[in-house]
């Protein structure tokens, strides 16, 4: 479609004009903005990458022919991702979204080599003149999960599948734990680290082990639906969708979910590049701004618990309540937050400790 349009324009305008315009990209009167996406999992993972790809499709829908998007899926964190980003930049991408924590250093490295290309790195903390960071306050969603989990568990054991021991994941564990303990002082967390974002086999094994050890709630910070399948198999275990709704497992075992909604952010950033107003920023939005969505709380949750969860969501959204509000101690018993004090973003961004009550050590 585009090609024929371009070709026709060239024919009509003749060689003189085409030559004066320089490149064929200008032949139909618009420069196409090329936007690249680097994904850590396959777009069909049903979780994290699936939602980023929904964001990409929203960009295509919003801008139509004036934008071209490209993506590469299942890119390993590390040197391989650097190669993929470099290739995208060489192919003319003006804006590249790198959508996993482990792409942080590769993004900075490639950004140095291509000062005219804009980069957007998800969930990281390193920025440059042409590198923005963006993330969502998933821990707000974790607070709601913790509340439901603590209210519904009968064994008082909640299993948690961690991916990597990074601040992002630890923040989620702490937030879920704080709110589970609030409604159920006997609750215990069992945490298994899978050391992967996406590996259904490992995630399934981890979920099974947690269930065997008595957990009747499994929270996951990994991207596949395998733990949901394991919980369904076990029969009496509840789970929460991670990154995406995972609605195919509703209403049970999946009783709610955290949904990432990247589309508005992606559209705004692409617009900024087109307008020439793009600048390096740090975005960290939560439930209030709509970047974190809470999937429908299913009927498997008792009505009063659902009501409390929705009230908690409303207070997190309007800012009247912060998920990390004192008094809170760190795991070793030292003070973390005084009564009524809330954690600042710097502390949250670098969180590398468990709060009081969680057992076990964070692997180094």
């Amino acid at each position, binding site marked *: 479609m585009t090609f024929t349009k371009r070709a026709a324009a060239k024919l009509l305008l003749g060689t003189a004009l085409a030559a004066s315009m320089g490149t064929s990209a200008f032949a139909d009167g618009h420069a196409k903005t090329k936007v690249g996406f680097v994904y850590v999992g*396959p777009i069909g993972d049903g979780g994290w990458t699936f939602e980023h790809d929904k964001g990409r499709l929203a960009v295509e829908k919003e801008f139509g022919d004036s934008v071209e998007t490209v993506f590469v899926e299942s890119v390993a964190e590390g040197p391989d991702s650097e190669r993929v980003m470099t290739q995208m930049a060489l192919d003319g991408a003006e804006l590249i979204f790198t959508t996993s924590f482990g792409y942080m250093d590769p993004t900075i490295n490639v950004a140095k080599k291509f000062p005219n290309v804009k980069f957007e790195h998800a969930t990281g903390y390193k920025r440059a003149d042409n590198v923005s960071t963006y993330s969502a306050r998933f821990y707000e969603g974790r607070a709601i999960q913790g509340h439901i989990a603590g209210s519904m568990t009968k064994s008082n054991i909640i*299993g948690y599948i961690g991916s990597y021991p990074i601040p992002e994941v630890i923040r989620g564990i702490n937030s879920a734990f704080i709110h589970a303990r609030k409604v159920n002082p006997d609750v215990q967390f069992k*945490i*298994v680290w899978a050391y992967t974002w996406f590996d259904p086999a490992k995630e399934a094994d981890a979920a099974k082990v947690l269930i065997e050890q008595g957990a009747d709630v499994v929270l996951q910070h990994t991207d596949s639906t395998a733990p949901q399948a394991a919980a369904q198999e076990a029969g009496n275990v509840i789970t929460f969708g991670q990154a995406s709704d995972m609605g195919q497992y509703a209403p049970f075992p999946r009783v709610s979910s955290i949904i990432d909604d990247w589309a508005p952010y992606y559209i705004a950033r692409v617009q900024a590049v087109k307008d020439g107003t793009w600048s390096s920023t740090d975005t960290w939005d939560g439930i209030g701004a709509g970047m974190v969505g809470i999937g429908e709380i299913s009927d498997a949750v008792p009505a009063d618990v659902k009501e409390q969860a929705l009230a908690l969501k409303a207070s997190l959204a309007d800012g009247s309540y912060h998920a990390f509000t004192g008094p809170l101690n760190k795991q070793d018993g030292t003070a973390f937050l005084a009564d009524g004090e809330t954690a600042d973003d710097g502390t949250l961004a670098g969180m590398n400790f468990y709060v009081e009550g969680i057992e076990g050590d964070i*692997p180094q």
Partner: protein
Amino acid sequence: MDLSAINPILFIAGFFVAATPLIFAAIGELVVERTGVLNLGVEGMMIIGAICGFATAVETGSPLLGFAAAAVGGAALSLLFAFLTQVMLANQVASGLALTLFGLGFSALLGQSYVGIKPPRMGDVNFGPLADIPVLGPILLSHDIIVYFGLALVVAVWAVLKYTRIGLTLRAVGENHDAAHALGFKVKRIRTLAIMFGGACAGMGGAYISLIRVPQWTEGMTAGIGWIALALVVFASWRPLRVLAGAYLFGGLVQLQLNLQGAGVAIPVEYLAMSPYVITIIVLVFLSRSRSAAPGSLGRIFHASS
């Protein structure tokens, strides 16, 4: 740290599930190696089996048909290996490695539209009141049919190799293919059939991962189990019943690592990930001190003229 959190009954029952893919892949490879052929393509045949089984089960709604298709897929891929090594007389090590790499890539291509889909579920065998026997019931009698099929297969391979004429022929071909040829055995035909049997077994092992253990499809999901199966055959010094013991040991190590984590004991994942290979190396050291247990013609190319 709270080791009492580990439920020993469920922990041991988990061994059976973790060991089954290994048992299938290793028992198939054992037969292949006993006829004197070294097929390093186990991983490739497993993953092809995993996607063939998954796709068929999703399309037909029947996990059992999926397993049948997995066996066919694995055997079909192994025919490529048989053609290279038995007809073209290519190097077995290189052909096997090529088979693994090809299988991993080709399965990813086949599986593109199956990512994130739920396969039909295979129920556990119903043993009626027997399943309620304390301890033994949940450990032994709470599994799907494939687990028992795997156990039966090991016993069958053991009996055939030890007591039947077919087994004697297979072993003769593996120990000395020239002598077997002189006796009038069709060395290439026997080896090709063994390779296909190995491929079918590996395929079913792969399907067990994608249809029952996970159950889901992702590329590269066999994650090195084929290589552990190869190590397991050596570890078992080419004896079927030792394969069974080794599979529980190797499969149990994975279970153990996750169970210990859940109980609050942090052991670096890497130690347990490399332990099957470390154990195999140690066993190899001991084996080499005594008479080698490997089949005499293992890895050697046969041509009637030599």
